[in-house]
């Protein structure tokens, strides 16, 4: 079965030499970039347009968000270590770093949940003003992406626990890593443009 086989398998000839699954995923990330670009642009367009408060300066807690941003950045480092461990065939390392990545992602989500609740109590809801709408929908979609990533990592972790995640599966982990880093980069853009830029 080494030649002329199903096109989607990774160990076969491709015109560019790139793996098909990875290329497809890059394409999807390209599409997702436009999705987040539209959400971020909307937030920027609506900056200062809210007719009543609370306004961003009333509710943003920069130290807390800096902390969660730092956690998410660190999770990308864990992801790199997880991939390296899987590629080495190091089961212990794979388990540790996959778990740590998912854990750090979850801490980020926890911070976001806390932030949302805090904003809600300060009187900012989806329908309060355009700040509330564009902020919650943008960060909400980002948070949903992080959640998907955490679930994906936990599934890989369970797979590793059962001893089914060897070096031959490195590609799957690599693509999960692509996704994770992408979600992380989107957050860096959000943190800079939405929280830091005044």
């Amino acid at each position, binding site marked *: *079965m080494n030649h*002329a086989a*199903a096109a989607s398998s990774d160990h076969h000839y491709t015109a560019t030499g790139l793996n098909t699954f990875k290329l497809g995923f890059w394409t999807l990330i390209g599409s997702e970039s436009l999705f987040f670009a539209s959400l971020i642009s*909307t937030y920027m367009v609506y900056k200062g347009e809210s007719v009543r408060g609370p306004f961003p300066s009333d509710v943003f807690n920069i130290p807390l968000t800096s902390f969660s941003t730092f956690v998410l950045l660190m999770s990308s480092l864990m992801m790199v270590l997880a991939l390296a461990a899987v590629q080495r065939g190091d089961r212990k390392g794979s388990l540790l770093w996959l778990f740590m990545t998912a854990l750090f992602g979850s801490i980020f989500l926890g911070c976001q949940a806390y932030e949302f609740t805090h904003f809600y109590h300060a009187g900012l809801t*989806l329908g309060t003003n355009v700040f509330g709408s564009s902020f919650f*929908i943008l960060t909400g979609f980002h948070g949903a992406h992080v959640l998907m990533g955490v679930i994906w990592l936990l599934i890989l972790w369970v797979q590793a626990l059962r001893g089914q995640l060897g070096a031959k599966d490195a590609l799957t982990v690599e693509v999960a890593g692509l996704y994770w880093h992408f979600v992380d980069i989107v957050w860096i853009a959000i943190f800079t443009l939405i929280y830091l830029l005044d």
Partner: protein
Amino acid sequence: MATAEATIQSGTTAGSKTGLWSWITTVDHKRIGIMYAVTALVWFLVGGLEALLIRIQLAKPENDFLSADVYNQIFTMHGTTMIFLVGMPIAVALFNYIVPLQIGARDVAFPRLNALSYWIYLFGGIFMNVSFLLGAAPNMGWFGYTPLTTEMYSPGLNADFWSVGLQILGIASIMGGVNFITTIINLRAPGMTLMRMPLFTWMALVQSFLVITALPVFAVALFFLSFDRFYGTTFYNTMAGGDPFLWQHLFWIFGHPEVYILILPAFGIISDVLPSFTRKPLFGYNMVVYSGVLIGFIGWGVWAHHMFATGMGPIADSFFSIATLIIAIPTGVKIFNWLATMWGGTIRFNTPMLFCIALVAMFTIGGISGVHHGSPPADLHQTDTYYVVAHFHYVLFGGLIMGLFAGFYYWFPKVTGRMLDEKLGKWNFWLFVIGSNMTFFPMHFAGLLGMPRRIFTYAEELNLATINQIITVGGFLTGVGVLVFAWNVIRSLKKGEIAGNNPWGSHTLEWATTSPPPEYNFAELPEIRTREPLWDGISSVDVTGPPKAPIHMPSPSFWPILTAASINLALILMMTEKWWPPVLGVALVLLCVINWAYEPASEH
């Protein structure tokens, strides 16, 4: 390893699986292509019927055949159907069937994802049209301007169906775009370099890039609308600081690339059909490729020419006007390339060729009126009149539909093994040409005389009755043309002349294999060395016959249809206006995706 893969041994005919279940679980790009085509043609009949209802209503002044409300629903659904349920999917049908064959691949890159796209599209289309049964079809125009579409001005279910339905269809398109880009970049046969690819495949590639970049912007605009309507956000609510133009910008940032998403496949078809019927290679292949890519790029910088009448100011108007006039250049380049291809060729006037000639002529007319409204002062007079309706029907009917019909007549023999009847084909062609010109040409005059679009009737004193009667007659002639086509297909499926592998003497790779091709497309392929492999030495003998080694094909799967159903469900549940039902729906989607990922089919 590969336990669930269907293995095609030498001499067996694994492509002969039949029955409903085999279609539901199929991942074969050819079967999915056929399902796309049949579904899109059914919607074409529905959308055409809606057009005829519009024409009956407008056939005389002060007509009361349709009420104003029903008329609004009919013209909205005509536009929405023709663009999202017909124009895009029919192109995808042809991509599905033809592109893997043209590049010498066994299937698309992600066969199950391909099936997923189809099922999402099918269910999404049905969902949108179910609204008719509730008497609440979308009724605010196919570009759904806010604030008209907000809860305050459209309280009914109409706009709900529209925003949710298009969200569903957008997902199918994005998945398809990812699939085709990956397929075309990665699955080309040895020797099939980018600059040897057939033009149809090239335009599929450019179009897919536009799809994956434009559709997410629309998805965001639609999410805002849905959330405004269901969950009380204030994106389009001016009272809370919302900008009424946000929707227009987001919509047209998607909407103008969408125009090229619709037309580029037709450009690809004609660029492959013309060489076959003129017996010479396409004139200026490189220029046609580059101008197609250029159209893709500039197509992103012209969106606000749909918004000149909103008063954006002279700087924005000038920028978008200039960009719009510039995009006419690469389009004009293509027209001249096609003319030069025909020039001095040994032309055979078969039906596909006739449709191509009609495309060149009618698209040029539509292109020229497009340049007219590219100029803001002229556009201010033409906006929202029948002049605009005339323009985009010339490019969409005269360009897209003529091109797609050229494609149908051209590739029907490859798909079915039988030819479409030439005599009926010519009837079809002449009814289309005469009918559509009779419909759309007088619309220029109606528009310049002041007839607004989207108004369900008009006063007798406007003296528009005669023009409208001519238009209506033309519309019905076109409708008869569609019936002739339907009859031609039904008849030819049984009685059509047997086609053989390459009935037109064409040059591209899909004509090397049998008609219809075996499940695995080619037994084996020699290295591709030229742009016209079949004119330069590759013969059917090389690529057909029993495979010499076992070929592994992806096995059927029912996860695509289940995943599609749950994606539809998750989005439709937004209509409950509670947050937890769609979340449950998403959980269901996740469950399907996990099962999908661990299905042994395409893993090694």
